[in-house]
């Protein structure tokens, strides 16, 4: 079978320069494809339409970097570290076209996409101002209908198959059989992709995959490319690999409060670094990373 291994910079070169629909697998401060996103910012990708059920630091960085045209999501924060102030400010100032959903309604759009069906019914937007806003914007992804099977009111949600989905996982082989340890909230998103890119902590042998096939949650049929990036989610957590870096996230939650400080951050940590290794060295290198390596029992 085809070897789908790519280097990070090559993979990111495949993302269109000027606009595509794209989704990321991060959730708040966990399993965010930060290395991929930082490289997208270095390569100056623009006009992205981002779809993400719960936003992570991945999307916040791209919004702050001015790479985003529209954002469809249900929520997101840095958990107790702080809010996504780059996202909030972009919404307040009308700099991005925001489409707000409930968690499940957006998840079900990905589910429909992953199954190749045109739409899926759901009730949880009914009565909400998220639904009113989508109607005001003439959003073609929603229709309020009466189901012919139970005569009940539903919002029919249009399927979603993003051009590109990027997730970060613990392991995959070169064919793209992906192992995710811990909860796999990003499974339907990954399977809905036209092209799925996965960054992994380590590329493992196909022999390992065959011996642990019950741990594979996304088989290679869905995967377009596999990119090995150790600590590729830093400073966010990867279960059983490393904890989030609370010191760095505390710092980030200060500098994301205004555009000037955030731009200085980008200049220093993203534009000012050539690649992810360089980024990790800048953020403290091995002496920092060794402090957050996960305990194999607790997973953090």
């Amino acid at each position, binding site marked *: 079978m085809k070897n789908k291994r790519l280097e990070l910079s090559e993979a990111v070169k495949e993302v269109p320069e000027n606009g595509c629909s794209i989704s990321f697998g991060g959730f708040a401060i966990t399993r965010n494809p930060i290395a991929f996103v930082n490289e997208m910012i270095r390569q100056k990708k623009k006009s992205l339409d981002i779809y993400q059920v719960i936003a992570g630091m991945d999307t916040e960085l791209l919004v702050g970097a001015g790479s985003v045209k529209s954002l469809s*999501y249900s929520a*997101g924060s840095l*958990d107790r570290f702080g809010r996504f102030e780059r996202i909030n400010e972009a919404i*307040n100032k009308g700099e991005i076209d925001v489409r707000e959903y409930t968690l499940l309604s957006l998840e079900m759009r990905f589910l429909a996409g992953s199954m190749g069906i045109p739409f899926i019914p759901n009730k949880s937007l009914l009565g*909400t*101002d998220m639904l009113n806003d989508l109607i005001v914007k003439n959003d073609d992804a929603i229709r309020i209908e009466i189901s012919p099977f139970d005569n009940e009111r539903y919002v029919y949600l249009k399927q979603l198959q993003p051009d590109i989905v990027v997730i970060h996982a613990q392991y995959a082989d070169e064919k793209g059989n992906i192992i995710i340890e811990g909860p796999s909230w990003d499974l339907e998103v990954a399977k809905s992709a036209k092209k799925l890119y996965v960054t992994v902590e380590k590329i493992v042998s196909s022999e390992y995959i065959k011996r642990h096939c019950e741990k594979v949650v996304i088989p290679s049929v869905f995967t377009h490319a596999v990119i090995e990036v150790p600590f590729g989610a830093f400073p966010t957590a990867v279960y059983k690999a490393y904890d989030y870096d609370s010191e760095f996230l505390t710092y980030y939650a200060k500098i994301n409060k205004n555009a000037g400080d955030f731009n200085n951050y980008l200049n220093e940590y993203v534009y000012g670094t050539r690649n992810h290794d360089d980024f990790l060295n800048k953020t403290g290198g091995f002496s920092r990373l060794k402090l957050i390596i996960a305990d194999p029992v607790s997973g953090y």
Partner: protein
Amino acid sequence: MSTKYKYTNNELMAVSASRFLRDGDNVVVGLGLPQIASCLAKATHAPNLNIIYEIGVINPEVKEMGVGIADPRLWYNCDHFTSFLGTMGQTLQRGMVDVGFLGGLQVDKFGNINSTLIKTDLGKRHFNGSGGAADIACFAKRLLVIVKHEKRKLVEKVDFLTSVGWLNGGNSRQKEGLPVCEEIKIITNLCVFAFSNDRQIKIETIHPGVSKQSIIENTGFEIDIPDNIAITSEPTDEEILLLRNNIDPMRMYIG
């Protein structure tokens, strides 16, 4: 049987919330007081409680509080890992969740919640957004809202309706097409609110030592408090000791 310990507002709220849970309930929780209340219920009267986090974690046995449900600390020793679909779709939407906990920026007199944005003179100010809250408000059978008792938070009408409670009262929730909700309660640091059969808000109990006047002054809608209003039951020694020694020893949430 009240406690000999001097307790905090948050401890009283956690204890009140835990008593809302019944043995065998399936409950969707988030970090903070909901997590604390669920752990307390499980350690006392509801050992068969099933705790569900939207991120895809079922029945963890947390030993260290974390920063949010994305924190692997909150996944420790769980029964099952799944996806959003497994928790919010196949469990919650399916109708298997008994209790949902909610919080927010504002709650109105019909129990509707805003967790999205506040309208100010300078324009809209966006916060974290709805996440799974609106799904929980839609599909859970009983809702427990925990909110700080302030005039700007308990309002006549929310600035943005994120999660539907009783919508506009009467049978408006049902007419909109939402599934049946059996009960909504709101726990604040001053009192517990409930709703009459025609979905009018009322005070169920006021917390020990709280004056009627302070409730009226801190509530953004008109509220009637009968003379014979009941007092919220105080925590027991057992509950206080469990909270302080086992559930939140760092006192991150119980104050």
